[in-house]
């Protein structure tokens, strides 16, 4: 059975949210200040909540009886279709905040546009997610500004994070055949149209942070088609371990 574009598309949205939420949850108990332990947990919870809503819907679209956990816990890395950006390691606090800024500066206008989708379920999930992503942009932007314009060390780390992660931002705006079919049907927003909003947000933050925006350079991609970095396998190993060791058990 071939999967429908809508299933694939919804799964991509779910995987993005789960993998980034999982990454953020790795911070718990390790953050630089207690308030950030709480904030990073909050961001992670938002994303895991989004992932669950998208997985449930993907399962319905597919109609083969897979629920949110079957989709999250029983697919291998090659079947995961998140963008490469979200699976990048947490690194230091600057890398985590930069990754969050890049993702949310895309996701916020994206969900804003997805609210107008002709697919009522996607539109409804987007309506909730857009508010959350607005907060993610604000929180990560504030930190990138503080770090960029803080001490020499924090400036150096923030610039390094930007330079290392920039190569994963191109994939956010790619539209393949799956996506184009849905754009034409009025279900998916055209991400190319979101580019200006992303650029403006990043430029404003980088100016205030006294950071150099990285040059265009080569853009890595492939995650959405299941070609991942080495990191995803380790995430799934940890994420899926109980479901794999005790097949069929209910938790």
């Amino acid at each position, binding site marked *: 059975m071939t999967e429908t574009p809508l299933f694939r598309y919804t799964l991509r949205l779910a995987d993005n949210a*789960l993998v980034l939420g*999982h990454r953020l*949850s*790795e911070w*718990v*108990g*390790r*953050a*630089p*200040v*207690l*308030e*950030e*332990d*709480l904030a990073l*947990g*909050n961001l*992670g*919870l938002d994303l*895991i*909540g989004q*992932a*669950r809503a998208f*997985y449930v819907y993907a399962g319905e679209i597919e109609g083969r009886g897979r629920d*949110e*956990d079957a989709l*999250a*816990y029983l697919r291998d890395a090659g079947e995961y279709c998140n963008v490469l950006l979200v699976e990048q390691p947490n690194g*230091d*606090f600057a890398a985590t905040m930069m990754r969050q800024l890049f993702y949310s500066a895309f996701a916020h206008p994206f969900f804003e546009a997805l609210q107008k989708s002709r697919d009522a379920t996607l539109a409804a999930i987007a309506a909730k997610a857009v508010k959350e992503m607005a907060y993610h942009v604000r929180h990560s932007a504030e930190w990138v*500004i*503080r*770090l960029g*314009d*803080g*001490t020499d*060390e*924090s400036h150096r*780390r923030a610039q390094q994070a930007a330079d290392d992660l920039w190569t994963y931002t191109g994939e956010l705006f790619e539209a393949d055949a799956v996506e184009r079919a849905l754009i034409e049907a009025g279900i998916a927003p055209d991400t190319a149209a979101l580019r200006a909003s992303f650029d403006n947000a990043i430029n404003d933050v980088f100016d205030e942070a006294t950071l150099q925006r990285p040059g265009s350079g080569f853009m890595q991609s492939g995650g959405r088609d299941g070609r991942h970095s080495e990191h995803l396998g380790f995430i799934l190993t*940890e*994420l899926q*371990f*109980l*479901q794999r060791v*005790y097949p069929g*058990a*209910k*938790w």
Partner: protein
Amino acid sequence: MYTQALNIKDMAAAAEDSAFDARFQSRVDAEEKIEPNDWMPDAYRRTLVRQIAQHAHSEIVGMLPEGNWITRAPSLKRKAALLAKVQDEGGHGAYLYAAAETLGVSREDLVEQLLDGKQKYSSIFNYPTLSWADIGIIGWLVDGAAIMNQIPLCRCSYGPYARAMIRICKEESFHQRQGYEIMVTLCRDGTPEQKAMAQDALNRWWWPVLMMFGPSDKDSQHTDKSMRWKIKRFTNDDLRQKFIDATVPQGQYLGLTFPDPAMKHNDRTGHWEHGEIDWSEFKRVVAGDGPCNRQRMKQRRDANENGAWVREAALAFAQKRRARAEAAARIAAE
């Protein structure tokens, strides 16, 4: 910001005055709340700082054993619930530190004392979480025991602590139900492997949980004074007994066996009697030789050290921003 300035005792001589002491005690006896700027005996203040700080530290260190399992939680629902729970604990830590700050200490100092090993946290968190069932057990038993200890603190004589505890207890009782629900899923609806996992977890955690109530009354150092000041309202042994009586039927419903061959119901008193607690283990773990004391402290120290550059950056940025605002105001004024 903390309120030390408001609490400086400019009446050192008067403080010794037994009239103050008597008035203080009569207010406590009348169940009035003592507030931050009220006169209070030094020893009362010290006892509270010690207890609230220890409680706050316990919340923060308590995030670690459960935090272990966030990335391995077996379903998305469990993952979200555990992440939210661990976050609640961080939140409890935050408002307990705030309550301690009303007594003239700062969070930074208290954290430093924790990291230097000068202040303690609950010993229960020095035990490892080895399976998913441990997450159920922590909710059911560790949070259950904490609630027994903490419900009376909602009526504690010190206002800020009492008020913090009201909110904390509400969240803890939600955690406790959540933990028990994990146990029900494992034990009543689970596979034989899941039941075995649950039994193993109970075997490892039962005795350490009983130790959470502290030494037996005959060996407890702090009880008398704390009772008189209404910081404490029940003795360690009373609370332990209440906990056991509430918990045994819950364990029986799960079909689990408590790892105490001497446990039996006394039909005359209506209480469950338990075997001898191994207080040498308790003393050893408190003294630093529990299975995870070193790991827990190392994780806290690492987080603190690895985050130092972030805190410095935030401070430097705030100073720059203030300087720029002042400069702009000067220019505007000229």
